[in-house]
C-alpha cells in the first residue's frame, strides 16, 4: 500500500515545479470564465490553459462566489506561475434546467447528420431528441416549444416528404403547411403565448458562395411572408399587410402578452445576389386581437446601414441581432446583439455580449433572467453557445461558454450549435415517433 501511495504521489508531482512565482494577473484560460456569473446549479466550469500549459486548480466557495486559483507550468520548467485567484459569481436567479439546440455540420449546403439535442445545464448530460436519420437525412430546422414546455414542440423538416412536425404530448403529426390555405411553407415559427396560434415566416431561401472573401457564404431570401396557423382547426391564414412580393417579412416574435407580433421586413430588391448590400431589414410590429392581425404594421426601428434579425421581447425590451445587411447574420462577422427600447425608440449594441466575431441567434430563459446565444467568436466558423445573466436596465453580466465535462470537447466537436432555446424540463426522445411519420 505504502509503495502504491508513494508511486501515486510521485506520479502526480511528476514534471511539476517545486516553486511558483506569484502573478498579479488572472490566468489565461479557455474558455474564458474569469469573472463570469453563473446560475445557482450550473455544471462546474471546466477549462484549460489557453497556451496549453499544464496546470492545477483549487476551488474555494466564499460568500456565494467561487474563487479559483490556478498554478501553471510548462514541462521542464523549474518554476511555474501562481495566478491571482479569479471569481465565478453565483447568481441567485434560477435558470431553466435544459437548453435545446441543433447540432449541424458548420459548412455549407449539405450535411451528414443533423440532431436536435438537449443539454442539462446542471450536468454535462446531452441527449438527442431527434436526428435527421428519422427523416431520411432531410434538413431539420427551426424547432420551437410552447412556453418552454417540451411536451409541445414544432419543428420543420425539409426535403422529400417533408413538412412541419407538431408534437402535443404523445400525439405527433406531420403537416405539410404548404398544401393548406395560402399554400406557403412554414419556416421560422413563433408560438403565441396563448398556445393556439403559431406565426410562421414562409421563406424562399437561397445561398451563394463568394469567390474571394473572408465571409464565404451569403444566405438570402427571394421571397418571404408571414402566415398564421390555428392549431385548433389546422388552418392557415394570411393578412394582406404581411404577404406580398413588395416586402420581405420574416422572423416573427410575439410580445409577452400576445397582443403584438414583432417581425423584420425589408424592401424587395431585384437581382438580390448582386444587390445584397441594399437589403436592410427593419424592426416592425403589428397588433393581434381575437386570433387575427389588425391594423397597419408599425415601423419600430430601422438602420439604413444595418439589418435586424431575431427580435426577442422581454420586460419591454427587444433583443435582436444587428448586421450590416441581409437576413442570415451567422455568416456576418460584424453581427452583434443589440437592445431596442420601444419607449425611447432607440437601439444600441449590448457591449457585454459582443465580440469581434459573430453573435447571432438568442433566446431568453422563461424567467427573463438569462439568455443563451450563439457566437463564432472563438474560431470564426464553428458556432458555440454562450449563456449570460441579465443584470437589468439593459445590461448583462459577462457571458460564459456552455461548459463541457472535458474542456477539449469545445475544440474537438465537429458540429456547430444552432437555434438554442430553453426548456423547462427534460424532453422525451422523439426519434422513433418522428421516424414513423416519415416512414409512411
Amino acid at each position, binding site marked *: 500500500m505504502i509503495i502504491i501511495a508513494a508511486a501515486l504521489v510521485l506520479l502526480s508531482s511528476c514534471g511539476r515545479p517545486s516553486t511558483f512565482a506569484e502573478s498579479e494577473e488572472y490566468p489565461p484560460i479557455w474558455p474564458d470564465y474569469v469573472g463570469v456569473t453563473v446560475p445557482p446549479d450550473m455544471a462546474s466550469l471546466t477549462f484549460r490553459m489557453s497556451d*496549453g500549459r499544464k496546470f492545477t486548480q483549487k476551488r474555494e466557495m466564499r460568500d456565494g462566489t467561487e474563487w479559483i486559483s490556478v498554478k501553471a507550468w510548462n514541462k521542464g520548467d523549474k518554476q511555474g506561475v501562481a495566478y491571482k485567484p479569479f471569481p465565478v459569481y453565483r447568481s441567485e436567479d434560477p435558470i431553466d434546467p435544459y437548453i435545446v439546440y441543433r447540432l449541424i*455540420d458548420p*459548412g*455549407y*449546403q*449539405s*450535411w*451528414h*447528420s443533423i440532431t436536435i439535442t438537449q443539454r442539462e445545464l446542471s450536468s454535462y448530460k446531452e441527449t438527442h431528441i431527434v436526428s435527421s436519420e428519422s427523416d431520411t437525412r432531410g434538413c431539420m430546422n427551426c424547432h420551437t416549444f410552447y412556453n418552454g414546455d417540451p411536451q409541445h414542440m414544432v419543428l420543420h423538416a425539409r426535403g422529400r416528404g417533408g413538412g412541419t412536425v407538431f408534437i402535443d404530448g404523445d400525439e405527433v403529426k406531420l403537416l405539410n403547411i404548404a398544401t393548406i390555405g395560402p399554400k406557403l411553407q412554414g419556416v421560422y415559427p413563433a408560438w403565441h403565448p396563448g398556445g393556439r396560434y403559431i406565426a410562421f415566416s414562409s421563406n424562399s431561401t437561397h445561398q*451563394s*458562395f*463568394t*469567390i*474571394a*472573401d*473572408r*465571409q*464565404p457564404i*451569403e444566405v438570402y431570401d427571394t421571397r418571404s411572408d408571414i402566415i398564421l396557423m390555428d392549431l385548433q382547426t389546422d388552418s392557415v391564414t394570411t393578412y394582406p399587410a404581411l404577404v406580398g412580393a413588395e416586402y420581405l417579412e420574416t422572423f416573427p416574435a410575439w410580445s409577452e402578452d400576445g397582443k403584438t407580433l414583432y417581425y423584420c421586413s425589408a424592401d424587395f430588391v431585384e437581382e438580390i*445576389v448582386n444587390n*445584397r*448590400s441594399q437589403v436592410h431589414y427593419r424592426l416592425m410590429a403589428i397588433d393581434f386581437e381575437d386570433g387575427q392581425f389588425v391594423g397597419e404594421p408599425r415601423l419600430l426601428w430601422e438602420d439604413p446601414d444595418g439589418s435586424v434579425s431575431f427580435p426577442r421581447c422581454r420586460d419591454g425590451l427587444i433583443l435582436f441581432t444587428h448586421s*450590416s*445587411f441581409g437576413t442570415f447574420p451567422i455568416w*456576418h462577422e460584424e453581427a452583434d446583439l443589440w437592445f431596442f427600447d420601444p419607449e425611447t425608440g432607440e437601439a444600441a449594441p449590448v457591449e457585454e455580449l459582443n465580440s469581434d466575431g459573430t453573435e447571432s441567434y438568442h433566446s431568453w430563459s422563461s424567467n427573463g433572467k438569462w439568455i443563451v446565444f450563439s457566437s463564432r467568436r*472563438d*474560431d*470564426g*466558423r*464553428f458556432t458555440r453557445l454562450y449563456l449570460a445573466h441579465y443584470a437589468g436596465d439593459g445590461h448583462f453580466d459577462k457571458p460564459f461558454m456552455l461548459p463541457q465535462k*472535458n474542456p*477539449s*470537447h469545445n*475544440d*474537438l*466537436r*465537429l*458540429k456547430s450549435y444552432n437555434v438554442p432555446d430553453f426548456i423547462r424540463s427534460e424532453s422525451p426522445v422523439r426519434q422513433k415517433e418522428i421516424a414513423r411519420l416519415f416512414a409512411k
Partner: protein
Amino acid sequence: MKTKALIPAALFLAVACVSIFLQPCSLTHMQNCGLFLLTPDWFREVLSGPHPVSETVASFLVQFYDIPVVGALIVAAIITLTYLFLNAALRRFRLPCHRLVSLLGALALWFFTSRLASNQIPVMVMLIAAGLALVSLLIRKKKEKPAARWEFPAALVLTLAVAALIGTDARTVRQERLAKVEINAVLHHWDKVLEVATPENSEKDPRLMPYAFLALGEKGTLGDNAFKYPLTSPDDFAMEGQNTLVANLFNSLLNECLHVPNEAIHQMFQFSAHLPHGMSHLSLYQLIKYNLENGNYTLARKYAEILKHNVKSHSVAKKVLKTYADAVDVADTTGHSSAHSLVMTKDAQINLAQMNTLGMSTPNSVNRFLCYQLLYGDLENFKRSMETLTWPKNKIPVNYQEGLLLSEIDLVYWDIDDKVLKRFNAFTDAVMKGDNEAIRRTALGNYWGYYILIKDKELSGRDSDAEFPGS
C-alpha cells in the same frame, strides 16, 4: 509447413499480393474516406449506430490503409482470419470438405469486398465468423479427418482463379484507376495523374478526363493536349454542378489549384457529407491545408487538434500544431468586402471570367477559360480572348491554333505552325470533298474533330452537313 496450413498461407499471400500490386490506391482511397477519432462525439455516433463493434474495428484498421503494404496485410489478415474462423466452426459442425467450403466463403468475401470502397463489411463478416467459431466450441471436438489429396491443389486453383478474376474485373480496375488519379491529384503529382488519365483510359472511364485536364493545366500543356481526349461536350471537361463523392473531391482539388480556397473548402465539406462520419481523414488533412494557405490559422489549428486524436495521424497533426502554434490569422487581403464580393455561379466560364475581374487569374484558369470557349464552339469570343493575350514566338498551343484557323483569322497576324496549317488544309479539303474517311483521319485527336461533333449535334435533325467557318 504442415499441409493444413497451406490453404490459409496461400490465401493470405494471394490476397496480400493482389491488394498491394493491383489495388494499392483503392486501399489509400478507403483510408481517405474513413475516419477514426478518439473523441467523445466519434464514439457516441458509432456506438449509437447499427454496427458499433464492426464499425469501430473497421474504422480503426482503415486509418493504416494509406501505407499500401500495411493495408494489404490487414486486408489479407481479415480474409484469412475469416477463413480460419469459418473452418474452425464448420469442422466442429462436422461439415464434409469444410476446408473448401470455408475457402469458398472467404474467396466470395474477398471478391465481393474488392469492389467496395469500405472495409466495414469484411470486418463484420470476420467478426460473425469469429462468433460462429466461438459458438462451435460448445460442440464436442471429434478427431479430424485428414484432408483428401485433391483438396490442397483444388484450393490453390480456386484461390488463383479468384485472384485472376479480381485482377481483371473491369469494375475493380476502373476503381483502382480513379483512386490512383485522385490520390495523385491530392498530392499534385501531375505526371502520375497523366500516366493513368490517358485518352485511351478516358474512353473507358470519362471520370478520368477532368483530372487529365486539371493536370495538363497545372503543367501548362492544356492547350496542346486537351482535344486529344475523347471530349463529346463541355460537360466532359469538368464536374461542374455535380454533387457526388467523386465530383465534390475533384471540384475541391480544382479550386485549390485555381487558388479559390472558399470554394475548395465548400466542396471539401460537400465531399465529406457523403461519407459515413460526415468527415474523413482526407477532409481533415485538406481542411488544414486550405486554411493554412488561406492564412486562417485558428481554423487550421482546430482541425489539426481533431486530427491529433487519430492514432495514425497523431504525430503529423502535432507537428502542424507546433509549427503554427503562434501564427496570427491573416486579415482579409482580398480587398473585397462581403457586400460586393463576387459569388460563384453554376457556369464555370462565368466563374473564370469573374476570377479574371478580381485579378485572381492563374495560367491554368486562363487556359481553362479558353478551352471552355472552344468547347462551346464560341470561336468569335475565343479569337477575341486570344487577341488580348500575348504569346511568345511559336508558343501558341496547338489546340488554340486549330481553333483560330476555324475562326477565319488573318494568317499574317498569327503565329500558326506550318504543320498545323498543312493539316488544316488537308482537313478543309476533305470537308469540301465530303470525304468522310479523310475527315475522320484529319480531325482525329484535334479540335476540328470535336468541332464537327458539336456542330453535328447542333444540326442533327435539320441538316447533317456542318458548316466550317474556316473552309
